[in-house]
Every structure is written in C-alpha cells, then in structure tokens.
C-alpha cells in the first residue's frame, strides 16, 4: 500500500462534475527530537482523491491511518504540508485552497463544511442553539438581511428535526448527543456548502440513534444537493452511505473504487482484513483473512515500500523495496498492491 499514484483520479476532461480534487496531499507534524534528529509524524503521505458532485466518498481505516488528518487538511485546519486541494476544478469558480491564507481563505471556507465526531464538544456550551446555527450567516451578513437569515435558520433547523422555537432559548447541553449532531449538521448546511465533510459523525452515538443521523445525512444530501466526504472506521456504516470508498492505512491509500465493487471484490489484502474483522464479517471474504499481526508500525518511521507489508500475509521482498502505485483492476476500482486479489 499503501501506495501513491493518481490513476484513480477521474479525467477532468471526461467528467466536468468533479467538485473536489486533492492531489499529492502530505501532512507531517513535528514529533520532537530523538538522538539529536528532528522527528516527523508522517500522518498523510501523498494522498490523491476526487469527488464528483452529489457523490459520497467514504474514507475508511483504523485509528492512525490518517483519515481524520486528511479531512482536516482538506478544510485547511491546519493546511497540509504540501499538495493541492482544488474546489470546482476547471470551472470558473475554481479555487486552490492550500495557496490561500487570511481573508481570501476565510471567504472560501463556507464552501466546505465539516461535522465532527464529538457532538457535545462541537457546540459552544455558552450560546443558544439558534445562535450557533445562525453564526455562519451572521459572520457574512449585511445589516439588511436579518429577517431573511432568521427564516433560513428556522428552515434548516426544521429540516434536521429540531424545533426552532426550542432552539431559540436552549443551550447545547439541554439536548442529547443525537440532537447535538443534528444541530451540527444544521450549522454546516445553513452555509449551503458544496462539500460536507463528516468525520466519524456517528461513532460517539448510541446504536439506536446512529440510523437517525445516517438517514438524516442522506435526506440533507438530497434536499440541499450536498456532496459528502464521509470518514469512519466502521465498514458497515461506510458501505451504507458511500458511492465510492477509499481505504487508508498508515497515511496512504490502499484501494479506491465504487462501493459495491470494493466490498464485493476487495482486491487489497488490507481491505480483506478489514472486511473479515468486522463483528459480522462480510460474506465476500474468508474469516481467516483477519489473522494478521496487531502491531501497527509507527508513523514516525513507516516501513519502506508498501507500508502494509509488515502485517501483510502476501508480502515479498519486492514490497519492501518498491512502493506499489495505484492501478486499475476493475471498472471503477483501483488498488495499490503488487499482489492484489483479482
């Protein structure tokens, strides 16, 4: 794997509806010194992705694989170490976010919104829910559009299933976790974003509440024409919401493809491990596929070549010396592995 390459990106000439294109994204954090040498966490290493309008891209992987770091790099929180994040490539509204800073960046920020994992930490405990949801409009408002804003906030609150009357006076801690997540969704949707990034939006919720939020996201996507980037460690959830899925491991992409193709014909050994490890393993893999070592290498000193090779049952010398590059194995199905199952 976990490999690099851009073969899986769609040709902008053939697809004019790509709304987000990420090229060679790298995110590194300083990790102190060891033996007098400056150490670096290679959180995301050369990841390229694209998303078409109205599509949901699922990014799945274990903790430390860099999926959340990728999400945050997309919205420039913080900006990536290198790489390009292009909104509306090829269109008149094209904008490359990494190059922007200051007020230019602030001005494009509303086009990409995000929902976080922790519903309670996502909302300011000292403000009323209506204030929270209306904040984005208030930031960009002119004095004249007060009433209009009010109506917009109420409409979106209504759409996510929160009573606007109640929202006017209550603070976040008076709502349950699921309701707080609805409020977060409303805050993002009010800005009419092109892309909504959901970072583990249901992981902190009770099982019986998850489906409500997942269904709500689908409804909001329909109603407001959103494009979703959905990040989760839960393969079942990702399958349910995604049109296209990207599997990440230790800062690299393993496999990208149409959701059904990827789940039905997993080509990368790591994808197979994930599918076989689920509490109820996917029927398309052998349960014994899950039998690999537990130790994930440190992102400070990732393995050479393919980063998955230290745990991979199929690894050979070639995997250590040569990093696999994304290549096509199916219609819309790409894998970065020297020995994929096809």
């Amino acid at each position, binding site marked *: 794997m976990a490999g690099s390459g851009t073969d899986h990106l769609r040709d902008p000439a053939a697809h004019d509806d790509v709304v987000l294109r990420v090229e060679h994204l790298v995110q590194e954090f300083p990790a102190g010194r060891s033996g007098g040498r400056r150490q670096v966490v290679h959180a995301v290493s050369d990841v390229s992705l694209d998303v078409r309008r109205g599509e949901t891209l699922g990014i799945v992987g274990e903790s430390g694989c860099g999926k959340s770091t990728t999400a945050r790099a997309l919205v420039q929180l913080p900006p990536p170490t290198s790489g390009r994040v292009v909104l509306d490539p090829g269109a008149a509204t094209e904008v490359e976010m990494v190059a922007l800073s200051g007020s230019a960046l602030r001005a494009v920020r509303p086009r990409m919104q995000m929902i976080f994992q922790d519903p309670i930490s996502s909302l300011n405990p000292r403000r009323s829910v209506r204030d929270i949801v209306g904040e984005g409009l208030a930031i960009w408002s002119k004095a004249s559009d007060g009433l209009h804003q009010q109506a917009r906030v109420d409409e979106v609150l209504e759409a996510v299933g929160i009573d606007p009357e109640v929202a006017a006076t209550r603070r976040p801690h008076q709502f349950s*976790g699921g309701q707080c997540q609805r409020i977060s969704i409303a805050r993002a949707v009010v800005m009419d974003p092109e892309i909504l990034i959901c970072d583990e939006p249901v992981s902190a919720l009770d099982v019986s509440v998850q489906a409500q939020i997942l269904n709500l996201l689908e409804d909001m996507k329909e109603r407001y024409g959103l494009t979703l980037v959905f990040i989760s460690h839960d*393969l079942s959830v990702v399958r349910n919401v995604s049109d296209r899925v990207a599997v990440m491991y230790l800062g690299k992409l393993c496999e990208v493809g149409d959701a059904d193709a990827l789940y039905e014909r997993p080509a990368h050994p790591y994808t197979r491990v994930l599918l076989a490890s*689920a509490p*109820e393993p996917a029927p398309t893999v052998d349960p014994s596929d899950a039998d690999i070592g*537990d130790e994930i290498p440190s992102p400070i000193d990732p393995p050479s070549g393919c980063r998955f090779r230290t745990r991979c049952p199929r690894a050979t010398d070639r995997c250590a010396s040569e990093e696999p590059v994304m290549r096509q194995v199916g219609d819309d199905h790409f894998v970065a592995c020297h020995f994929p199952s096809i």
Partner: protein
Amino acid sequence: MSTASAAGPLLSVQDLGVTFGTADGPVRAVDGVSFDLTEGRTLGIVGESGSGKSVTAKALMNLLPSYAEVEGSITFGGRDLRALAAARERHFWGVELTMVFQDPMTSLNPVKRIGEQIAECLRVHLGRSRKVATAEALDLLERVGIPEPRKRLRQYPHELSGGLRQRVVIAMALACGPRLLIADEPTTALDVTVQKHILDLLDDLRRERAMSMILITHDLGVVKGRADDVMVMYGGRTMESAETPTLFGRMHHPYTRALLETIPRIDAPAHTRLVPIPGRPPSPAEVGRSCPFAARCRHRIDDCLDGVPPLVPVPVGAAGAEGAEDASHHSACIVSVGSDGRGDS
C-alpha cells in the same frame, strides 16, 4: 438456563436493583434484573448507554460507589456475594471473579512495569514468591499472545499499543485462575482489526480454562457468534433473554428487533434506507413505571404505559399460539409481535 447442572448455576442474580442517590433524588439504574449463569458458558449482555449493563457488572464486582443502594441477591458458587462484600472479603474479587474494562489504562498503573503488575496479583492474592510470580507472569503474557513476553515484563503500559495493553489486562484478570470473567466492552476502544483477535482470545481462554464469561457490549454482532446466552437490557431492565440461536432466530421483543434492524449491514448495497428508532435512550432519571421502550416503540399500545411488563417465557412456535413455552426464552413485552415484525394486537 436450560443446561443447568445438578449443582445449580455458578452465578445466580435475583431481582437485582441499583439506585443512586444524587443531588436530584434517587435514580434507578438497574431494576429487577435476574439471570443465571452456568459454569463454562458465556452470557452476552447487550445494551446502549444507560441500559444498566455496566452498573450490573459493577454490582457483581462490588465496584459500586458508596452512594449506590443495591437490592436483590447475588449468589456465586453457593456464596452470597453481598454478604461477602459486607464482610470485606479481600481475596474474592480479583481471584474468583475478575473484570476486564473497556479502557485498559483504567486497570493498569502507568508508573509500574507490566511484569510487576501481573506478579503483584499473584503475590497478594495467592501468596506466591517474587520469583514464582514473575515466572507465572511470563507464562501468562505468552498465553495471551504477546510477542517477546520477556521484554514486555520490563516495559511500562504506555510503551504498548492499545491491543497489547488489553492483552496485558486479560493476563492480569486470568492470573489468579478466576471462575468468572466479566468483560465490559473489552474491544470498544480498540481498532477493528484488533477487536476480533481480542474476542477470539477471550473465547479460547474461556474454553481452555472452563471459565464462565459475561461479555458486555453495545453491539449485537459481537455477541452473535460468541455468547451461549444473550440478555438484552434497556432502561435498567431486561428486555429479552434467551440462548443465542433462539434470540437471533425468534426475536420477540420489539427493542431487540429494532436494534438489529437499525444497524447498517456490511453486505447490503449502498444507500439502503435504514430503519431508525425514533427518540433517544432514556436517561436513568426518567425511568418510570411503564415499559422503558414504550416511548420509542412502533408497536406500542395503551397498555404499555400502564405498568412495567414482566419478563415472561415466550411461547414456542407461532406468535400467540397456545401451548409449549421455551423455558430459556423470556421477553418483557405484552404486545406479541409476529416473526414478520408486525404486531397483531
């Protein structure tokens, strides 16, 4: 349970109730929970936050804080646990009855070496010498599948990954040869690829040592292949209990059914519409005198709000059919829901 040996169950819980005294008045976290666990079997307790599953486990482990009021009886191997607790019997919990928590760091001392920590259990409870204890600790680490166990003995908890830490905690829980191991969400904090290994390990160990196990989880899927019996809890009460195949084959309670239907399936095509359960789990402060699930239930009838439905045996065969009852299958629902999921009341 149906396979109870002549000697009776290892653990028998009767009418367990736990009430917390809080600033806002008493809160009933567990209400009228009863179950038996036979030697060598695994009981899965499934529930969401606030279902009372963890409080039940803590009541068994004598870990509840002083402001918790416990009622009912807990008998373990013929001994009354609550009497033992009152007598401050030290060598019982941690020896015959041990627990593995969700977060391994709650059970590990961050400033002590792994080896010392395991050896300490053995020395304190079983009076082993330092040398013997260390040798046994090494064996235990090896048994729970920790690579390079000799090196790990001298390491501190923070030097290990989450999965390895949980293995160390399991080794500690096994050290004194418990007859019952309670695992409270042992894999929730771990990565997907590690979860399965830990669950498999627990299962192997249980079989090998003829222990009993209580596996507490929020995920019905975890329980499916691993528990012999399942008890589904909600709002502090037992909703349904049965042998695992029976439960998954002939689910009776609307909550169990809803819980299974609401989870996205890994083998269903993308964008399959999920069946949500409206509302949210009840906070323990709200538990009243009706079926706790009534407010969210599709099949609710007026009678559901009138008193707490008792846990009664479920008739075998078609819903509502007269005659045989499955002695191991109980459900606390007065509405009888057909296998097609529709109520016929």
